[in-house]
């Protein structure tokens, strides 16, 4: 048994009863987002790196392994180690874009 098993005081049934509807809504929002992309004014095209990251996250969600939230966070993260030499904008966009790497 993992050290994190049974750390939530709610039963499986209580967890489903409490959180099912909000996650049903999230699932439909996600589905509608992908549908919307297919209806885009400029027609079909390659995935933006953020959409590709979402697709990879969905695959990870269904792999049956634990620590899904942590692993999705890592999937979306900059995996490099060295500090950047240049500042290219101050904002974050939510997924790592390999095209912005500095070769580190």
């Amino acid at each position, binding site marked *: 048994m993992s050290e994190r098993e049974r*750390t*939530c005081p*709610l039963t499986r049934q209580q967890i489903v009863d409490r959180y099912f509807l909000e996650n049903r809504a999230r699932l439909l929002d996600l589905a509608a987002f992908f549908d919307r992309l297919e209806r885009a004014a400029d027609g079909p095209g390659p995935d933006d790196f953020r959409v590709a990251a979402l697709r990879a996250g969905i695959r990870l969600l269904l792999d049956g392994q634990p620590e899904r939230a942590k692993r999705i966070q*890592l999937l979306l*993260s900059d995996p490099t180690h060295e*500090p950047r030499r240049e*500042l290219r*904008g*101050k904002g*974050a966009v939510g997924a790592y874009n390999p095209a912005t790497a500095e070769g580190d």
Partner: protein
Amino acid sequence: MRYIDLHAHMVSRTTDCYQQMAASGCVAVTEPAFWPGFDRRSADGFEDYFHHLTTFEPQRAAQYGIRHFTWLCLNPKEGHDRDLAREVLRRIPKYLDRPTVLGIGEIGLNKNTANELATFREHVELALEHDLLILIHTPHLEDKWKGTRLIVETLLTYPELKRERVLIDHAEEHTIEPILAAGFWTGLTLYPTTKASPQRAADLLEMHGPDRICVSSACDWGPSVPIAVPHLALELRARGHSPAFIEQVIWRNPVAFLSQSPRFRLEDV
């Protein structure tokens, strides 16, 4: 239930927010120095901000029975500009003796540049020189993991640094373990969309236990919830956690961390 919001940018909030917070049990807030949404054009702008944080804002909070404390620095969003950073760092010490200043913060990294890291180091050294608590911002979204690693590695190069006097904030699922394992305090930020929801924060508290973890709203000029800490308390209560567990998270932990500063006093609230 009384609580402390350890990270709230109240200069960006209205008096209605103070009223909601007070009505929901907030006894004290601590406000880190922040980025105003644009780069300040000179060090003089920072001086006006430090004056605001240490004079008007405590008075405004007091009208609602809330104690207001602050942290001073040049925020990581502006840390890449080394000339500006050096000038602001030169001016910060004259504000450090003000009675509501707890320490240096929120320092850290934004886009993980070498310049930001140099500015971060200089802030850490300023805190060490003045024996002050340190509050650290970890970067947003895709930059958080790398930035947290760089911050922890940098802090560990200062053997004189007392780790229990440092809180590394905005931890999430992928960064909480290295922060706690290194002996620092950490913070969970209850901020919509880009940080942790009350549900995910409750999950992290269940998986890691409540020791050395504080929570905050980080409410600011963006979409945020000034009473997010009570929302977490409600979530924990709905899951069946004990009043003692909840009190540790929203009251006793921040009191324990902040009381390491002699300036942190609540007796006259």
